[in-house]
C-alpha cells in the first residue's frame, strides 16, 4: 500500500464516524490542552518570578549575618553577637571585581508630615542603592554620597508614601518626621509595584547611619554587593568570604549569590511546572483509555471489513498498521486541537492577568503533541493486534 493511500484509508475510517471521532479526539484535546496550558502558566510564573528577582539588577551578591540554618530565616538577622558592620561593607568595596556595595538596615516606623502620619517600612541604604537596585527616581534625586557616620537627614519617598502624605502637593524639599527626627525630602521614586507580597512603594529610604541611629542598632542586616558583569559570582563570593573570615575570625555570615538563588528558584519552579503538568496529564491518560475503547469498538464493528481485506491478500502487519494509524490519527488530531486550546487559553490568561505572562514553551508544546501520538499508539496497540489476529474466514462470517 502506498503511504498516501494508507493515509487516505485511515482518514476515511476516522471521518466515517464523525461524531464518534470528534468526541474521542476531544478527550485527547482536553488532556493535551490542560497539559499545555498548565505548563505555559508554570513557564509564565517562572519568567514572572525571574523578572521580579532581576528587577533589582543582576550580578548581585548579598551578605547576611549568621550562618543560614536549614530552617528558613537565621536568628542572626534579628540579633547577633558578631555583627556585620559598615566597616565590613567599606572593606568589601576594595575587592576589584566589586563595583558597589549597599549597607542595609530595615525597620518599621511612622513617618509624619503636617497632620498626616503613615507607618511604613524604612530602609537605611547608601547612595549606591539607586544604582545597584536599579531604582528610578521620579522627581528630585536619590540620597547623596555622604560619609556613613556623618550622613545628613535626607529621605527619599516611595510613590505610595508620597501620595499618602502629600497627595497632589509638592513633596520635594518638605520636612517629614521619622521617629522624632526631621528629614528633608530629597526625591521621590517611580512606582515599583509589589514584590512577593511586599509593597515596595510603601517604603522610604534614609541613609544607613541615620537608620541605625533611629533603630538604636549598631550592625547591618545585609550588605548587597554589585560585581562586574564579566566576573564569576562564585569567584567573587569566595573572595568576599575570605575577606570577611579574615576580619571576623570565623564564618559567621552567609553569602547568597543571585545566580545561585535564581538557580534554586528555577529548580523549584521547574518541579512545580512538571507536577502541575503531570496532574493535567491524568486527563490525557483518560483520553488514552477513550481511544482504546473506541478502537476496540471499531475493530468489533469492522470485523467483516477486516475479513474482506484479509481475503484480498492484505497482510496481518498491514491490518495492524491500519488500525494503529487510525488511533494515531485520532490522537494527533486531538493533540493539535489541544495545542490550540492550550495556547489560546494561555494567551487569554495573559490577557486577563497581565502580571502573569503565560508563556508557551514550544519544546513543551512539541512534547505534548508527541505525547498525544504516543498515547494514540499505546491505546491503539491492543485493538490493532486483535484486528490483525482475526482469522479471515471467521471475520468474513461475521458480515
Amino acid at each position, binding site marked *: 500500500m502506498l503511504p498516501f493511500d494508507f493515509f487516505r484509508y485511515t482518514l476515511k475510517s476516522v471521518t466515517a464516524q464523525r461524531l464518534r471521532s470528534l*468526541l474521542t479526539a476531544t478527550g485527547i484535546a482536553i488532556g493535551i490542552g490542560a497539559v499545555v496550558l498548565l505548563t505555559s502558566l508554570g513557564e509564565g510564573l517562572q519568567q514572572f518570578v525571574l523578572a521580579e528577582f532581576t528587577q533589582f539588577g543582576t550580578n548581585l551578591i548579598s551578605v547576611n549575618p549568621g550562618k543560614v540554618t536549614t530552617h528558613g530565616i537565621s536568628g542572626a538577622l534579628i540579633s547577633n553577637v558578631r555583627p556585620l558592620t559598615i566597616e565590613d561593607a567599606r572593606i568589601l568595596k576594595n575587592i576589584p571585581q566589586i563595583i558597589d556595595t549597599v549597607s542595609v538596615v530595615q525597620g518599621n516606623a511612622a513617618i509624619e508630615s503636617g497632620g498626616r502620619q503613615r507607618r511604613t517600612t524604612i530602609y537605611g541604604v547608601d547612595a549606591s542603592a539607586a544604582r545597584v537596585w536599579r531604582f528610578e527616581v521620579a522627581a528630585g534625586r536619590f540620597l547623596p554620597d555622604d560619609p556613613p557616620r556623618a550622613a545628613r537627614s535626607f529621605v527619599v519617598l516611595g510613590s505610595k508614601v508620597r501620595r499618602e502624605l502629600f497627595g497632589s502637593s509638592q513633596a520635594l524639599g518638605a520636612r517629614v518626621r521619622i521617629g522624632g527626627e526631621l528629614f528633608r525630602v530629597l526625591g521621590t521614586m517611580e512606582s515599583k509595584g509589589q514584590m512577593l507580597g511586599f509593597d515596595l512603594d510603601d517604603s522610604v529610604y534614609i541613609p544607613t547611619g541615620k537608620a541605625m541611629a533611629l533603630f538604636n542598632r549598631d550592625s547591618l542586616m545585609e550588605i548587597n554587593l554589585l560585581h562586574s558583569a564579566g566576573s564569576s559570582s562564585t569567584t567573587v563570593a569566595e573572595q568576599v568570604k575570605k575577606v570577611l573570615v579574615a576580619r571576623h575570625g570565623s564564618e559567621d555570615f552567609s553569602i547568597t549569590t543571585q545566580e545561585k538563588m535564581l538557580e534554586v528558584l528555577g529548580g523549584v519552579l521547574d518541579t512545580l511546572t512538571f507536577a502541575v503538568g503531570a496532574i493535567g496529564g*491524568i486527563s490525557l491518560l483518560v483520553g488514552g483509555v477513550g481511544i482504546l*475503547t473506541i478502537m476496540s469498538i471499531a475493530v468489533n464493528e469492522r470485523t467483516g471489513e477486516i475479513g474482506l481485506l484479509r481475503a484480498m491478500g492484505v497482510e496481518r502487519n498491514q491490518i495492524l498498521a491500519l488500525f494503529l494509524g487510525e488511533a494515531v490519527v485520532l490522537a494527533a488530531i486531538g493533540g493539535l486541537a489541544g495545542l490550540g486550546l492550550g495556547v489560546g487559553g494561555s494567551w487569554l490568561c495573559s490577557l486577563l492577568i497581565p502580571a502573569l505572562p503565560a508563556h508557551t514553551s514550544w519544546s513543551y508544546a512539541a512534547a505534548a503533541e508527541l505525547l498525544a501520538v504516543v498515547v494514540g499508539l499505546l491505546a491503539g496497540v491492543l485493538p490493532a493486534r486483535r484486528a490483525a489476529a482475526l482469522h479471515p474466514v471467521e471475520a468474513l462470517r461475521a458480515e
Partner: protein
Amino acid sequence: MRLRDILSFSIRAATANRGRVLLMLLAMAIGVGSVVVFISLGDSARNYVIDQFSSLGTDLLIVLPGRSETTGGPPPLLGETPRDLTLDDAMALSRARTVRRMAPIIAGSAPISVQGLEREMLVLGSSSELFAIRHLALSQGSFLPPGDLSRAESVCVIGLKGKKELFGSGPAIGRWLRIGDRRFRVIGILSSPGVSLGEDLGEIVIIPVAAAQSLFNASSLFRILVEAKNSAVIEPTRQAILEIIRQRHEGEDDITVITQDAVLTTFNRIFQALTLSVTGIAAISLVVAGIMIMNVMLVAVSNRRAEIGLLKAIGASRGQILGLFLAESTLLSTVGAAIGLVVALLGIRLAGILFPQFPLQLAPWSPAIAIAVALISGIAFGVLPAHRAANLEPALALARR
C-alpha cells in the same frame, strides 16, 4: 416500569460488552480517584498545619513591634522600630486581667562552644512561662526558674540535638557552655518534638531574657507571647494589649498583635485555594471520562437501534427509553466513581503506612463529592445519547437490521 427493573435492565445492557464496560469504569475511576486523592491531600495538609498551630494553644496571641499600614498585608515580621518593645512593656501586659501567662522573647544567633567544639545555634531569651505557653517538654533537668525577669541568671536549657552535638552521649546537666563571650550552666534538656513551626527545637538554646539582652546588647524584644485565660477572651485581650502599649508608648499604635484565629484563617484560605486549584486540574480528567462515556453510549445507541425500535413497538414510551439509557450511563459513572473512591482510599492508606509522619486521611466529604460527580456526569453526558435513543423513529429503527 419499576426502578428495580430499570436497574437490572441497564446492568445487563451495560455488561453485555465486558471489555468496553471495564474501560469505561477505568476512565471514571481514574478521574474520581485522582480528585479524591488531591482533595484528601489538601485537606490533610491543612489539618496538619492547623494541628501544628493548635498545639501551641488556641489562646495564644503574639505581640510584635511595628505596624504596617496596609490592612491584610504581611505584618512586619522582621526589622527594627524606633521605639522598642521592652521588658517593662511585657511585664505591663501580664497585669491585664484576661492574660494568663506571658513570655517575652529575644531571638538571635550565636556561636555556642564547649571545650573547643563550636556550633552556631538559635538562642532564645525568654522566661519560665515559655514552657507552658509553647507546650514544651523536658527530657532531663528543669526549665528556666521563675522569678524576676530582669535578673540575668547564667543558666540555659538546651535542645536535644544541640546537646548531642556539644556533649555527645555524656551528661550535660550541670556542665557549663559558652554562648558568645558568656558562660551558662545547663539546667535542662528539651525532649525533642522535632520541628515546630519552622523552628528546629532540637538546635536551640533557651536562656533568661535579661541574659539575652546583655548577650546581644539589645533592649528590644523580638516578640511577646501572651496566653489569654481562655479562647473566649482573645479579642478583649487583644484590645487590652493594644491599650496598655498605647499608653506606655505615648499614645502611639506601633505594635502588631497576631491572634491564632487570624493566622488560622489565613492558612485555611491558602490551603483551600491550593486544594481547589489542584483538584480542579484533576477534575478535568472527569470531563474527559464523561465525554468517553457519552461516546460509548452513542455507539451503544446506534448498535442497539433494533432493540430500541422493538421496545417502542411493545409499548415503551419515549420517557421510558430516555430513562433506560440515562440509567445505564449513570450506573456506569457511579460504579466507576465507587471504584475510584475505593482505590483512592487504599492509596491513602498505603501512603499512611509509608509516610506515618504525615497524617494522611480521606477527606470526610469525598464520598459525597464522588457520588455527586458520578451522578452529574452520568446524567450530563448521558443526556445526548439517551435523547438520540428516545427520538429514534421505531419504524426506521426496526427496518434496518
